[in-house]
Each structure stands twice: as structure tokens, then as C-alpha cells.
């Protein structure tokens, strides 16, 4: 199980890296064709935007850890373990319920956008925006997992002192 999770995470990381590298390459191509070759391609800008959108929500769905997010943790950090358990549980319930409740309407909007296409490459908008639905499902799923963890016997692991994110990042 752990091995499988590891493989999936690697795969998700590879997708994100390819996505942002391709976006970067798209821009370089745009600058080169416009300013060096003087014959700009019309699709570079659009593909960069599409890749950006996809990359943001793909990464948010599969790669962002709790501690990567911008959060106001001053109160959480000084709270005792039991209080943290309650705080984290309220958060997980609120996020899970809200995103689950919104999912049908979000689905409707995205499918409705299937009638429109992007201006240059004629990509259907439901495919472009669909990644947001994936993100929403991942958010709901993660809230459920978090809640289960918090209600289970090992809840202390979840609310224990976090490692300083920056310290780990720059080692």
C-alpha cells in the first residue's frame, strides 16, 4: 500500500513538473517566434494559460501538503493537543461538507461549458475546467481521511507539532 502511494505520488509529481516545464517552454517559444523570427505563433499564449490552470489545480489536488498552504496557525500552534484535535476536525468537516455540497452545481457548470471552446486552439472548456472538479473531489476525499484519522486512536500523530516547513524545504 505504502509502495503504491509512493508510485502514485511520483507520477503526480512528474505530471506537475512536465506541465510547468511545458508552460515555460511555451513562453520561450512565444518570445523566440515573436521577437527573433518575427512570425509569432498564435497558440503559445493559450496553451500556457491552459497548462497553468491545469498545473495549479493538479498540484493542489495531489501534491500540496497541509503545511504547504498559507494558513494562520498562530492559535493552532499554541493550543493544547485536545483543542487542536477539535480545531482540525471542525476545519475538515467544514471543508468536506462545503465542497461536497457544491460539487453537483460545479459539475453542471463545467458540463455546460462543454458547448464553448477556447478561442485559438478550440479546446472544449469542460475539458479545461474539468481539473477543478478533480480538485474538489480530492479535497472532499482528503477531508474524509483527515476526519477518520482524527477520530481514530492515532489522532495525536495528526495534531502533533509540525516540522518547520521551511527548515525541511531548504535542507
Amino acid at each position, binding site marked *: 500500500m505504502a509502495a503504491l502511494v509512493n508510485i502514485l505520488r511520483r507520477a503526480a509529481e512528474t505530471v506537475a513538473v512536465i506541465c510547468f516545464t511545458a508552460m*515555460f517552454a511555451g513562453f520561450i517559444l512565444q518570445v523566440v517566434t515573436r521577437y527573433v523570427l518575427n512570425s509569432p505563433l498564435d497558440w503559445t499564449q493559450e496553451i500556457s494559460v491552459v497548462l497553468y490552470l491545469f498545473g495549479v489545480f493538479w*498540484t493542489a489536488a495531489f501534491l500540496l501538503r*497541509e503545511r504547504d498552504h498559507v494558513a494562520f496557525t498562530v492559535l493552532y500552534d499554541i493550543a493544547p493537543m485536545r483543542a487542536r484535535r477539535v480545531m482540525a476536525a471542525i476545519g475538515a468537516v467544514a471543508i468536506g461538507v462545503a*465542497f461536497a455540497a457544491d460539487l453537483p452545481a*460545479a459539475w453542471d*457548470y463545467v458540463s455546460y461549458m462543454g458547448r464553448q471552446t477556447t478561442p485559438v486552439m478550440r479546446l472544449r472548456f469542460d475539458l479545461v*475546467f474539468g481539473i477543478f472538479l478533480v480538485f474538489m473531489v480530492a479535497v472532499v476525499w482528503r477531508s474524509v481521511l483527515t476526519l477518520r484519522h482524527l477520530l481514530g486512536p492515532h489522532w495525536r500523530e495528526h495534531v502533533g507539532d509540525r516540522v*518547520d516547513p521551511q527548515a525541511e524545504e*531548504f535542507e
Partner: protein
Amino acid sequence: MSTAFYLALFLLFGLSALGVPVAFSTYVGAIAYLFATHQDPGLIVEQGLNGLFDSYLLLAVPLFVMAANFMNAGTVSDRLLTFCLALVGRFRGGLGHVNVIANIIFAGMSGSAVADAAGIGRVIIEMMRRENRYPAGYAAALTAAASVIGPIIPPSIPMVLYALISDTSIGYLFLGGILPGLLIGAVLMAMNAWIAIKRNFPRDAAVPLAEMPRITFRAFPALMLPVILLFGIYGGATTPTEAASVAAGYAFILSAVVYRGMSFKEFVHLMLDAARSTSVVGLIIASALVLNYLVASENIPALMSKKILAIETSPLVFLLAVNALFLLLGCLFDATTLILIVIPLFLPAARALHLDMVHFGIVMTVNIMIGLVTPPYGVLLFVINGITGIPLKDIIREVWPFIAVLMVALLAMILWPDMVLFLPRRFGYLG
């Protein structure tokens, strides 16, 4: 304002206080609002995603992150520091001056204070600590304060976010940041000089003039990057986003090909890091766009302007009050949150008072960047503590004089808008 809107604000701030990531608190508040007002909950997708899709400028954010990452990966920082050392090392407290000058130059290629502190900041702290020449807390505090210059001198990620949220020209904002950034550098150097004399900090051996051409030549490719960026944008050649991609491409070639300081593995690691930070910011932006829809549908701009005009406050008093408030908020909140979630609540009032949006944007950026070094929640203090292990309490003890001069500089910008607006006007800004 409707009850539903108060419910949204309550959820936003209440959940945030519990430690829920700001983007999610904002989404939960917005979703509750849409259900309570019987609007289509699908609007959270419509507002957020269409907004992102139309904001081509936003793509500059990952590109600036990449540029700074590539620069930090290669030996660019070392070359720049050698150059700065030759320039100002000979004065008392020389390495402190090197610190500030290097940050000013680096600010011309990076748009993020955190990237500066983690990149060039880390290298210079090591230099200052060699043979224990400067106290650890002092080296760390000065580095934190000098990193503030990064997003004030263009390019600047916070200004890109402000431009997006306020519909202000990013070109004029970037120009408006140049003089304030130099002013901040000057006051920090003045404070460093004063403390250096008082505490008898060392000088570094003067570099012979004959060495200068070689040192400059070694640093030259890196020094060219700010020039390329500014020419690209103000020569009218490229859009800011394209300029950002040129900067990232140039930094990539410098680090990977010319200086050979970056391996493929490192490249993948840096791209993953860029993906993460881009995603974190992108998510907050998407949620902020939904929040903006709420603010607009509640007709808050009109309400605000009516209220503000009724109080008959002067623009200056308003600006001072907002700044005092944001300095307090900056002690607790992260910069992205303040710019994307809190500033939009004040924009209608600022507009009603006919404040100049470029001036307001620069002043708020500087203000919020000062918040990055104010305890207890100062991201730059945490970053430097994280990468160097210098205890937070030592950094905090030494950072106060620098916070004081930063605030003086901020006050000067508030009182003399011309300092901010001089350059934009020279380039055709009609404000």
C-alpha cells in the same frame, strides 16, 4: 450588507483562525453565501476559473519563481557578492552594506522576498558569520530586512497580485517601486553604518582597483538581467509576462549552461518547488476572485463610498489609518492573504477618496513587506531561522532598529506621493 455576507465573513475569518488554509476558508465562506442567497453554487467555478483563464499576467508568478530558483541554484549569488564586496566592503560594517547592495541588485531579477532570503541571503549570512565577525542575530536581522527590497524593486510578485485585484497597470506599478526600493536600501545602509560604528564592526580589506574589471566581468552576465527585464518592459518590447519568461530563460541558461551550476535532478526539484508555490498562490487567487464576486454582488463599493464620504475623512488620514491597521495585520497574517483577501475590502473606499491607485498599491506593498519581518508572524524571520538555525529570539532582538527605519521610509512614501509617482509620470502615467 446582508446576513449571508456576514455569515461568509464569519466563516472566512473563523475557520482561518482555527488554522484552516486561507484559500479553503474563503471557499467555504463563499459556498455558504451562495447557498444562503439562493444563487448558483456553480459560480465558484465560473468566477474563479474564468478569472484565472483571463489573467494572462498571472503567469508571470511561476516564471518569476523559476527565475529566482535558477539564479539561486547556480553560482550567480557568489559572483554578485564578490562584486558587491569589491564595491563597499572597505567601509566599516562593510559586509552589512554588501548585504543591502546585493539585495538591491538581486531585487532587479527576483520578485519574492522569501526567494531572496533563502538564496542570496543564506550565502551572505555565511560570509558575515565567518570567523564570527558579526553577531549571528545581527547578520540574520539585517538580511531579513534587506530581503524586503526584493518585491519592491521590480519585478514583484505582490505587485502582480495587486495589479490583478485592483485593475492597475503593472508597468506603472513596477516603475513606482524603483525609487522606494532604493530609499529602503539607503535607510538600511544608514542604520547599518550607525550600528557598525557604535559596535565597532570590522571592515573588509579594500579590493585593489586593478581587480575591479575582472570581478565585474565575472558578475556581468548576472548584472545584465535587471537591465534586460526593464528594457523589455519599458522599451515597450515585451509584456511583463513575456519579460518574466525571458528572465527565467536567461537565468536557466546562465545557471545550467554558462556557469554549469545546475544538474537535471536539481532542475526537476526546482520545477516541483515552483509548481507548489504557484499552486498555493493560484488557489488563493481563485478563491479571492470568488470573494470579489461576493463583494460586488453585495454592492459594497457603493456602500463604502457613501460611508467614507459621510465621515468626511481626508485621504491622508484614511491612508495613515489603513497603514496602521495593515502594519498590525502584517504581524499576524501572510502577505498573499493581505493583498488578495483584505486589500479588496479597502479598495472601494480608497477609490471613493480618489487616492492614486499606483501610489496606494506601492505604499501597501511596502507596508505588507514590512509585515514579513515583524514578529510574531514574520515569514522572513522563519525562513532565515529555518535555513541557518540562528535562534528566532536573537534575530528578533536585533531586527527592531531595522523595522524602525523601514517604517520611517514608509511614512515618507505616504507623505510624499511624488517619490512613488515621479518615475511612472516620466513614462507617461497620468495620475
